[in-house]
């Protein structure tokens, strides 16, 4: 399925897996979400025109607008627009033909798009999530939001599920980019010489890998709380702190996750438009690495007003202020690059410079919040809103600069320079008019429209600024629309001093990127004729782009190369596929399944109503839980149930077809791979996935430990009645690990019967594990102990249930592999998939090795 329809056909965009197409999809979709998030902001800013609100929105609608604006901008606009740039540019900058896993890349996009659609559907399910973008506990569970909001619980659940789906998309993207950047760099392109945008993106995806996994764990627990009525975030036993720890362990790195790509764009544009290599380039990279590491050491500065102890607050104050130091170095590097170079004030540079100014202001005001004592004063006020937006929109500003910078490369046409500058003027004035007054109204509580009358003038200025700022984007869209229709054709490299590799090929680049194989072996970019006899043959017509910006001469960047099609591959059978419909179908299936899941609370309550009523009748029930409220959910909604089950069916079929499809994404034969040489792309991808799963499981197990420490360690008793059942399951899983490793041995020996026997035994053992588990749970249910019976029960059922779900996924994959061996003699010549499956299965085994003592013995 390798033929790719033309760009004017809709089908092209549904089936494409090419990194540049997916990049364009990401960029355009994120800009649509920018508009939607912006409209929400304009609506609530208009509501704020008068103290107490103009009446444009009800209180709940105001909360929904503010919340959804925050969620959309942080998750569905800022991260994805950067992902769009990365998709388009990272392979070009490192000399790869595509990402390591093109279909997974397309799948990331579809999950992202559909997750955004789910978020906006939530408005039509009785109202979206209204509790703030931080989703703080205990307001994030239905029983704590009584009255009118309880009707909105389906929409609220949908927003949470949409976020969970978005995180799944991010995780896939992370695995893909880590594999690509670490294993697909052109010959001679060492990490130190990578272009700075790619550097910033590499660190972004490393942060994403660990940070989003923690958020994923938190969202799993929250979704189960909302759908199944477990009690992670519903108690007064540390629930609020548990959420805050998990959320901010993600949320703080997230600030740098959204800012780093913007920083990378600033570095690139400063180099290009100052005509000078970045001052202190090596130290800038070291600083970025430091910030990426430190970003995980500061999360509790978001929790200074909670009951965490003073020692830990002091420690986190120090780490927070410490993180500003490497940023100082980066800021000074940018300033000195301007001082030492000759600045050309083009539109992309103006936006990058504007971003630097805003970032300095945002950074300085952030130091106030990093100090415990000042934070006591500023927390929860418009100071935070202003600081936060100065930092985040600083990133947006640089990203807009990136849009102008790479527009000629992506569209093949030039934009209108004067209109671009006009956009910047309106943008910069509008932004400062919007947010600077908020520093002055720092006594106004955030998320509240009843502000002091004395602040009226500042709020009205902000509202005017918001409309100017919003309007400025229309100038940008008009400019781009003009460019597409009437704009002059862009040369390969419209910028004099840009030197990264994407400028050495035509605008827009051909489908397969390069005429031959890119190589930096000689120190500059060359395109090597690919012949199997002489892989490092003579250079052809490549440009002389250095690996990154420098003191280039004016004519050093022009490339004469013309687009060559991928058909020129010398290696037979290495023709890359570009089209597959299954990523779209999997996205659609997941969409339908999650759509159904959002309304499953009513189904669960109705099915379990007798048990819930019996449980609520006991004196163990927290006084915060009201039986009427819970049972008020009872509503067997067959539409949701149908969507849920139908979605699972459709998803399973799509995954099956995805697995069966022949799809060839050739691995680069000659590439720089430090420090991950010696493992294949797929195996490395599996390991990266497992690293993220370590965090997911670790956070869920950590939640158990945290709650147990809160409760006093010895107040918890093991929930299962029989320790031997857990021990039996330990033996079963260990044996299944043994059989799966024997399956690998059989595959290596091309022994079909042996392979089928060993894999079959693994599946039987997995089923036996599930049977013991079902028996154990059945026994507990018979005693009236359910997942909603108390916090300890929630912890036990969800943690072991998540493990069981992993076993089920493993069984499905194992069953699929068995089918493939039986039908097409799979894995007998190439045993690697069996090994990859084993890596996953052994990991699930390791988790059980930890779970068994924690839940059955201690």
């Amino acid at each position, binding site marked *: 399925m390798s033929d790719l329809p033309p760009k004017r056909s809709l089908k092209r965009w549904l089936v494409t897996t090419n990194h540049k197409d997916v990049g364009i999809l990401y960029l355009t979709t994120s800009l649509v979400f920018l508009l939607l998030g912006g409209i929400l902001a304009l609506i609530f800013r208009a509501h704020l025109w008068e103290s107490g609100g103009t009446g444009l929105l009800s209180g709940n609608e105001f909360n929904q607008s503010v919340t959804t604006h925050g969620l959309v901008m942080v998750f569905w606009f800022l991260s994805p627009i950067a992902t769009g740039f990365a998709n388009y540019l990272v392979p070009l900058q490192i000399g790869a033909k595509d990402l390591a896993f093109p279909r997974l890349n397309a799948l990331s996009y579809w999950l992202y798009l559909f997750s955004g659609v789910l978020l906006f559907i939530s408005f039509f399910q009785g109202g979206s999530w209204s509790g703030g973008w931080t989703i703080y506990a205990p307001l994030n569970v239905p029983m704590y939001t009584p009255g009118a909001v309880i009707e909105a619980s389906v929409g609220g659940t949908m927003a949470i599920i949409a976020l969970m789906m978005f995180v799944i998309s991010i995780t896939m993207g992370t695995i893909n980019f880590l594999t690509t950047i670490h294993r697909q760099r052109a010959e001679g392109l060492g990490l130190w010489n990578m272009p700075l945008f790619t550097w910033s993106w590499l660190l972004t995806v490393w942060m994403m890998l*660990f940070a989003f996994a*923690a958020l994923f764990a938190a969202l799993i627990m929250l979704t189960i709380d909302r759908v199944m009525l477990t009690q992670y975030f519903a108690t007064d036993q*540390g629930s609020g*702190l548990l959420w805050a*720890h*998990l959320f901010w*362990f993600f949320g703080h790195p997230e600030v740098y996750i959204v800012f780093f790509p913007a920083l990378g764009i600033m570095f690139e544009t400063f180099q290009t438009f100052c005509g000078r290599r970045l001052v202190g380039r090596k130290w800038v990279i070291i600083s970025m690495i430091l910030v990426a590491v430190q970003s*995980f050491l500061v999360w*509790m500065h978001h*929790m200074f007003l909670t*009951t*965490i*102890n003073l020692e*830990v607050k002091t420690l986190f104050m120090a780490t927070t202020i410490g993180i500003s130091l490497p940023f100082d170095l980066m800021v000074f590097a940018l300033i000195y690059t301007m001082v030492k170079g000759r600045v050309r004030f083009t539109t992309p540079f103006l936006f990058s410079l504007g971003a630097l100014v805003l970032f300095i202001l945002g950074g300085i005001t952030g130091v106030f919040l990093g100090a415990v004592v000042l934070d006591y004063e500023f927390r929860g006020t418009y100071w935070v809103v202003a600081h936060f937006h100065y930092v985040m929109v600083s990133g947006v500003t640089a990203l807009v600069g990136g849009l102008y910078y790479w527009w000629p490369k992506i569209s093949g046409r030039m934009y209108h320079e004067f209109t671009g500058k006009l956009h910047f003027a309106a943008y910069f004035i509008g932004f400062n008019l919007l947010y600077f007054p908020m520093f002055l109204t720092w006594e106004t509580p955030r998320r509240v429209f009843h502000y002091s009358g004395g602040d009226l003038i500042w709020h009205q200025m902000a509202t005017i600024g918001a409309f100017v700022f919003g309007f400025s984007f229309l100038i940008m869209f008009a400019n781009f629309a003009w460019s597409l229709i009437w704009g002059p054709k862009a040369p390969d490299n419209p910028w004099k001093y840009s030197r990264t590799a994407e400028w050495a090929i035509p605008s827009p680049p051909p489908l397969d990127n390069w005429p031959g194989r890119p190589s930096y072996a000689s120190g500059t970019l060359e395109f090597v004729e690919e012949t199997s006899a002489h892989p490092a043959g003579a250079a052809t017509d490549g440009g002389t782009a250095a690996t990154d910006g420098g003191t280039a001469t004016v004519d050093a960047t022009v490339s004469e190369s013309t687009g060559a099609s991928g058909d020129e591959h010398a290696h037979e059978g290495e023709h890359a596929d570009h089209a597959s419909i299954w990523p779209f179908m999997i996205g659609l299936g997941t969409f339908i399944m999650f759509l159904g899941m959002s309304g499953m609370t009513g189904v669960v309550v109705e099915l379990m109503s007798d048990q819930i009523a019996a449980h609520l009748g006991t004196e163990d029930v927290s006084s915060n839980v009201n039986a009427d409220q819970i049972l008020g959910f009872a509503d067997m909604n067959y539409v949701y149930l149908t969507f849920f089950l139908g979605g699972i069916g459709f998803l399973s079929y799509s995954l099956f077809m995805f697995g069966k499809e022949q799809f060839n994404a050739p691995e680069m034969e000659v590439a720089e791979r430090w*420090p*991950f*040489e*010696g*493992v294949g792309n797929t195996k*490395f991808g599996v*390991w*990266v996935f*497992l*690293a*993220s799963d*370590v*965090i997911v499981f*670790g*956070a869920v197990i*950590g939640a158990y*430990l*945290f709650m147990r*420490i*809160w409760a006093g360690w010895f107040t918890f008793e093991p929930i299962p009645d029989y*320790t*031997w059942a857990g*021990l039996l399951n*330990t*033996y079963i899983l*260990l*044996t299944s*690990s*043994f059989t*799966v*490793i*024997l399956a690998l*041995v059989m595959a*290596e020996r091309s022994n079909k019967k042996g392979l089928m026997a060993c894999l079959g035994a693994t599946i039987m053992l997995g089923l036996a594990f599930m049977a013991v588990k079902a028996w154990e749970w059945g026994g507990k249910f018979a005693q009236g102990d359910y997942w909603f019976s108390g916090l300890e029960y929630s912890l036990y059922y969800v943690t072991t249930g998540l493990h069981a779900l992993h076993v089920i996924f493993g069984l499905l994959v194992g069953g699929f592999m068995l089918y493939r061996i039986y039908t097409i003699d799979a894995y007998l010549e190439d045993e690697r998939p069996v090994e990859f499956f*084993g*890596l996953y299965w*052994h*990991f699930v*085994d*390791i988790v059980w*090795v*930890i779970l*068994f*003592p924690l839940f059955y*013995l*201690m």
Partner: protein
Amino acid sequence: MTSVKTYTIIYVILLALGTGKFLFFTFDFGYATAMGGTMLLAVIKSLLIAGYYQHLVDEPRSISYMMLVAVFMVFLLVIAAGYSIQ
């Protein structure tokens, strides 16, 4: 790649260590000893599975370091969060 013989030896050791964890809590060692002992056995089992069944001993060290960073992140979160409520 390691031989079937090695895999089998590891399997037997894993079964023994699994039983060991159980024994710690069946006979009276005191809670702290039993807890420390079981967790130690769990770590040894995990390392054996990761090292030999997942072939980490044969893979580039960088893979092990990546997994160690992930485990470190979990410890960082759990220990710091646990300490914050002391």
